């Protein structure tokens, strides 16, 4: 690895050396207990992939910003016994000196792939700009050639087309690959990747990470990968650091962290990463006589696109859903999952086919009957930040469905809100709060309570835990299981997350481009997938390779 550094430059054994790093967002409030980073210490080896795993708020991004000197606040305070990159002390750099480091020696990749590039300029001109910035000798023609070459390095077969495109014309995964090329443009020694694939679909995620690791291996660059997904870190990293509330609680080679976790929190993370465990949802035993609650037959829906051409959202979908059962619909974005549930709930009308709920045809319902159906079939949405009115208090939010359906008196509604709040495990004091005062997991509990308050039989959960941290996700899933048992609920669960499907569902339905490609009991789908697409999805899921490490067999 010595070959990378210039001859004559004193070479440090480690590329990055951090010791006793403390960070405050507000220098005026700099007390030991208000630290955002607490005595953080670690070092990065040259040419290695290191992952920092932790939930949102654990201080991962704060750490990245400290390394790059990019803080959003101005009156922060940073104390460190050591914060060195190679031969540079990162604690005392001027703006000009920082510019020598950023991009040239440390590259950075952000989570928001589509926002990583200026939306108004072509990919090519942006890549050329950053290349010329770091290699001033490049002339117009050679810069263009270099940009095209860099695009091939991140896996584009037709670099010219990408070069001529604007960011909005490319998918999130493609944008992220361009951002990787831009981060590598200055030939840095270290890449900091902050949740680079969290916003992408499973198979795209794998593809982007493959290109990233390949590009890094090619140039001998080190990678510091920040992620909330332990399974993903387990697949890629040589070394794993676990962060919790601003502290590094675990630090070791991947294999030993997974097989002999020392800290309780790491153990909890491993247990909460369903792909890494062997736990598979056990199918609810159904009495064979039970008639299906939801019966879907040959359902199809077509939308007109902007030019008037017909686009099929989904076609010929048929399945049964029995009472007290959990059915997962799995698929990537654009596979028609959400269009399907919207049609099932009669929020849009189907073109052909039928939906029967409890024996009656949903498509024929009108007026009062349709309203009754809405009471019986409720929905919980993906984004708990957008699905609750931020101006209302929780008590108002919970009571609203009862008011709409004209159930009970005002005091009865309040009582119902109170009892449901305790059902979903939140204290009564939350009734007077507003959504902005709650965490994502707490908001999703409110959303669930709100859906349950009308006493529904069927709950449609559209990516209901996808926006949550792993531990919040686990807690919400456990709550849902408990509610299902005590209230006899039936769940239709939409997700792109195979790990969640595996852990939570009785049966799985795999959708691709609006069609069902595979349908079966959860254990069967995960142990012996029949359709090639299902196999492809399973292999792309983070943790697929690493699960052997946890159990010590391979």
């Amino acid at each position: 690895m010595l070959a990378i550094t210039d001859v004559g430059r004193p070479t440090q054994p480690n590329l990055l050396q951090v010791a006793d790093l403390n960070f405050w967002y507000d220098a005026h409030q700099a007390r030991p207990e208000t630290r955002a980073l607490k005595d953080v210490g670690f070092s990065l080896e040259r040419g290695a992939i290191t992952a920092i795993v932790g939930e949102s708020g654990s201080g991962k991004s704060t750490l990245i910003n400290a390394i790059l000197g990019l803080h959003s606040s101005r009156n922060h305070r940073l104390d460190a016994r050591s914060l060195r990159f190679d031969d540079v002390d990162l604690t005392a750099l001027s703006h000009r000196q920082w510019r020598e480091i950023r991009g040239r020696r440390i590259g950075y990749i952000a989570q928001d792939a589509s926002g990583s590039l200026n939306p108004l300029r072509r990919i090519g001109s942006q890549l050329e700009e950053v290349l010329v910035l770091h290699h001033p000798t490049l002339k117009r023609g050679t810069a263009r050639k270099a940009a095209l070459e860099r695009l091939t390095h991140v896996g584009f077969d037709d670099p010219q087309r990408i070069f001529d495109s604007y960011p909005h014309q490319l998918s999130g995964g493609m944008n992220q690959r361009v951002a990787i090329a831009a981060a590598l443009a200055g030939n840095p020694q270290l890449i900091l990747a902050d949740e680079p694939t969290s916003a992408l679909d499973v198979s795209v995620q794998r593809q982007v990470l493959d290109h990233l690791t390949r590009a890094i291996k090619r140039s001998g660059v080190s990678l510091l990968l920040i992620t909330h997904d332990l399974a993903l870190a387990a697949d890629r990293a040589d070394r794993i650091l676990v962060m919790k509330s601003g502290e590094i609680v675990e630090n070791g080679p991947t294999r030993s962290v997974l097989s002999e976790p020392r800290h309780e929190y790491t153990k909890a993370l491993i247990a909460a990463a369903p792909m890494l465990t062997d736990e598979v949802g056990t199918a609810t035993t159904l009495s064979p006589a039970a008639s299906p609650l939801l019966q879907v037959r040959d359902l199809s829906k077509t939308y007109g696109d902007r030019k008037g051409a017909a686009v099929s959202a989904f076609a010929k979908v048929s399945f049964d859903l029995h009472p007290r059962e959990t059915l997962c619909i799995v698929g990537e974005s654009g596979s028609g999952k959400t269009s399907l549930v919207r049609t099932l709930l009669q929020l849009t009308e189907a073109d052909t086919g039928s939906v029967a709920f409890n024996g009656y045809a949903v498509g024929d319902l009108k007026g009062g009957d349709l309203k009754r159906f809405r009471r019986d079939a409720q929905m919980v949405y993906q984004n708990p930040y957008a699905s609750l009115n931020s101006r209302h208090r929780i008590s108002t939010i919970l009571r609203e469905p009862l008011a709409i359906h004209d159930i009970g008196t005002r005091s009865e509604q309040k009582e119902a809100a109170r009892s449901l709040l305790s059902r979903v495990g939140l204290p009564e004091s939350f009734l007077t709060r507003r959504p902005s005062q709650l965490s994502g997991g707490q908001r999703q509990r409110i959303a669930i309570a709100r859906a349950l308050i009308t006493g529904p039989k069927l709950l449609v959960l559209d990516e209901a835990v996808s926006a949550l941290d792993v531990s919040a996700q686990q807690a919400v899933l456990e709550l849902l299981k408990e509610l299902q048992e005590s209230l006899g609920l039936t769940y239709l669960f939409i997700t792109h997350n195979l790990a969640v499907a595996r852990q939570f569902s009785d049966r799985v339905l795999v959708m691709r481009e609006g069609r069902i490609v595979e349908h079966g009991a959860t254990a069967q789908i995960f142990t012996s997938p029949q359709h090639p697409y299902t196999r492809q999805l399973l292999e792309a899921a983070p943790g697929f390779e690493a699960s052997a490490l946890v159990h010590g067999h391979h």
Partner: protein
Amino acid sequence: MSTRASGQAASARPSRWTFARLRPVLTKKLLQAAFVAWASFTLTFAILYWLPGDPVSIMLGADAQVDPAAFAKIRAQYGFDRPLIIQYADALWRALHLDFGTSLVTGKSVTASIAEAAPVTAQLAFIALALSVILGTTLAVLSLDLPGFPRFGVIFSKIPSIFVAVPTFVVGLLLLQFFAFTLRWVPATGSDSWLTLVLPALTLAIPGAGLLGQVLSNSLHQTYSETFIRLMRSRGYSELRILGHALHNASLPAFTMAGLIVGGTLASSVVTETVFSRQGIGRLMQMGVTNKDINLVCGLIVFSALTYVVINLLVDLLYPLLDPRVEYRA
């Protein structure tokens, strides 16, 4: 996903400016323009007709002693004795040929008067717009507090609202008092040399600069909170280079605003040209309204409406050049 993206990207390079793509847009916009012109003409005609006061007595002057027979003769001569609908149809027909008749006060052709005054105002408006853009942009950028620069942003972020709040005539009079009468740097009135343009242009520019400054400052702050700006810093871009990218992005809402400001300049020019005694559209308008000169005011209103429509058409057509995400849509 990839197939859809490739389809779009493949069609991206061929020019977005071909006439075939523009034609439906242009047709629609021109029809809208025609409607706006007609509506403004009709509205003005109606308002001026129903306002108290008779055009002929105004034309003759308040003190004129004319016997009723002669008065009726003059009315007939100008066609004011005809039924309203005929007068309207006749005026509209002539307006279609850009003939708004003669001014009831000066007796000159309305079209000729406008054609004479328009360049004076256009020159003023153009310079005022340029000044607005420069001033507004400077204020917006100074309000940013970029890393590595002194932090006076709070002060500069307050100036635009002051600019918007102060009435045009107050600004005009203050500038006159200070630069023309006290310092004697520039002449106070007239429209002959370019020096006479300085004060009125500045007067006109200040409210525009305030509006632009506010809009641009908001959108700049918003742009600076976006991921790609952070990423540019992480790639080692200088603050100046980042500012270039950010200004392009932030200019989009300000660009639409600039179109509106040009329209507003025509209205403000009434006051400004009166204060600085310049023979432009604003002055003409003020004369027309005071004297109830139906022909002149109708002509001016239609002219203003058309100018407004044309400028907004230009803004709409230029917008996709600034923002590739926007497509022409009829």
